[in-house]
């Protein structure tokens, strides 16, 4: 990811105008624009207002929009996620922040058994335009209960939409698309990614479409498929591979997990004949499991090697830094997986 300085300070209204900002700031910009655009949009969650957000995504928004639209909640995830479901059913546009995805599990019933069911179970007569934003991820020695990545669980549920932006631009564009979508959308952020910087379009109508993957790096030798922070890692690894091994890797950033844009993935793999799928979560029954299944079906005649997967080691994450680092899908392990899939030595 680029860390270049701000490219423009002009208050330009040109649609192409961009500004370099962090992922966190891009999310905040999206929230501010949508709060301004539509009075039905409101934010609720733990510490989103007075405290300005556990990870400061909502900093300043309560001061700007008031406590009614940036609404602090008690520690009651099931209660306020469900309140979001109900408000959405009556035409509001709630954006619910869950401090981390680990805490979303206590609201699982409202997400999976309720929000996801509304469209189909009632014959399409009522909709639930709810957004839930939450970060996943490990790497801060937060240990077993606070270091998980459950987006695959939610993405396996028909009735939900799940997006997981990897760049500040997509953080803005996908969050805005999620808020404007008529269905419940889980926006998966990531603790490590909040500080990443990149160019972000300033146009308030800039939207990243849901269900469209992005080829983040063009290449011809192998396809790396990833989402969220794993995309950041994959792009770093791709540069290392080019530099150290002369390998030209293509990186497909999924951006959206449900809908999943297999077309873009398959097109890439048909070209490179090899794929390594990477995720921050546990691979068994995970996002990469789904990718491997679909790639082998869509690209059976093109594959020159088994589809490989890299994810979190399948243990509850330990505290000790060395153990945590070893368990995570770090760049060394990704690189090793790529080289093995290419039949090359490290």
């Amino acid at each position, binding site marked *: 990811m680029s860390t270049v300085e701000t490219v423009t300070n002009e208050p330009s209204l040109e649609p192409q105008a961009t500004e370099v900002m962090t992922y966190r700031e891009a999310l905040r910009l999206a929230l501010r624009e949508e709060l301004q655009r539509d009075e039905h949009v409101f934010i609720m969650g733990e510490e989103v207002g007075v405290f300005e957000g556990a990870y400061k995504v909502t900093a300043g928004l309560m001061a700007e929009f008031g406590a009614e639209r940036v609404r602090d909640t*008690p520690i009651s995830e099931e209660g306020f996620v469900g309140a979001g479901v109900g408000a959405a059913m009556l035409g509001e546009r709630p954006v619910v922040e869950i401090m981390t995805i680990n805490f979303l599990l206590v609201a699982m019933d409202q997400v999976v058994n309720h929000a996801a069911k509304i469209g189909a179970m*009632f*014959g399409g007569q009522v909709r639930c335009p709810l957004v839930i934003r939450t970060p996943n991820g490990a790497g801060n020695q937060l240990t077993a209960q606070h270091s998980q990545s459950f987006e695959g669980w939610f993405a396996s549920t028909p009735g939900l939409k799940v997006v997981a932006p990897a760049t500040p631009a997509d953080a803005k564009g996908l969050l805005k698309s999620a808020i404007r979508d008529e269905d419940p959308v889980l926006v998966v952020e990531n603790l490590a990614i909040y500080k990443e910087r990149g160019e972000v379009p300033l146009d308030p109508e800039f939207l990243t479409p849901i269900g469209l993957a992005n080829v983040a790096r063009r290449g011809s030798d192998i396809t790396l498929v990833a989402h969220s922070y794993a995309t950041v890692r994959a792009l770093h690894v791709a540069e290392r591979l080019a530099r150290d091994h002369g390998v030209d890797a293509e990186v497909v950033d999924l951006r959206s997990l449900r809908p999943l844009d*297999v077309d873009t993935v398959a097109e890439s793999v048909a070209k490179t004949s090899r794929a390594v799928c990477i995720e921050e979560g546990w691979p068994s029954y995970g996002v990469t499991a789904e990718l491997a299944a679909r790639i082998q*079906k869509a690209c059976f005649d093109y594959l020159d090697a088994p589809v490989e997967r890299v994810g979190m080691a399948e243990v509850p994450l330990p505290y000790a830094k060395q153990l945590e680092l070893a368990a995570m899908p770090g760049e060394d392990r990704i690189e090793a997986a790529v080289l093995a899939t290419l039949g090359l030595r490290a």
Partner: protein
Amino acid sequence: MEISKQTLSRLYEQMLLIRSFETASEREYKAALIGGYCHLSSGQEAATVGSTYALEADDRLITGYRCHGFALARGVPPEAVMAELFGRAGGCAHGRGGSMHLLDVGRGYFGGWGIVAGQLPIATGLALALVRQQRRQCVLCELGDGAVNMGAWHESLNLASVWQLPVVFLVMNNEYGMGTSVERASAVTDLHQRAAAYGMRSERIDGNDLPAVIEATSDLTAAARDDRTPSVLELVTYRFRGHSVADPGLSYRTTEEIAEHAKHDPLQRVRATLVAAGVSEDELNALAAEAEQRVLAAVEWARADAAPEVSELAKGMYAPGSAAQFAGMLAGAPFGERELVFAGGLGQ
């Protein structure tokens, strides 16, 4: 509360309709024309009809899964309810919901929900939306006595109180959560007392006393509308049938107990009131026969209605316009997904 003879007579008709409907549901379930779970509310008619009567046309109602009576009391045509039980396209949830998931958005009925207490957080959200939209309306949220032991009850009551949401939590205490009596399940058996923990107004009344139910619900819904005062109303009642049609309802209670409750059948109580008010037995018998005919007609209508098309399997799951978002998901999809889901109206 003074209820006019005409109103009482109309509510009695609703109660008769519900009783006949439940009787027919059990019959058709046993004839295998209704599947899944089927929870009957016979014995709870006064609580159902009285509380629903207290609602204004633009108030919102949300319930658990024992919901046939509430749908009917709210005015959903019996044809649409029975067709839903039959899994027909003309059902009020288009054959997608069944007995537990009735719905009629136009009548402000936001659904029967099947996970115990799951509808409570949603009710607070409906009420929050009413506040945000500055509507002088309220939400009536029905739940069973078993639901008060769920975390969602605690979280929802607290949230409703902290945020002053216009919602009345209506506890239908029929003495058993499935087969577990309130005494065996709840440390406090006067369930409404739990509202005190949230600084919330509450009442417990005889749910089989129709005028009392109307009066209490009217007071509390008015307070919700006028002052955004949330509350708990516990209606003590009894279900004559088992937890669901599949449960004879005898392993956890005696036939004597059921017979004792049958002596205080809410229908008989209202009938006695009407007789005392000068309505003739003939007229009342005619009302009962009419209700039965109405239900028989609904059964016939449901029987004749078409099953939903498999070509619409995915209907409603995602909002119209979502199909394009899913276009890329067809590649490598599991066997049959193209025909069933993508051709089945996904996001159309």
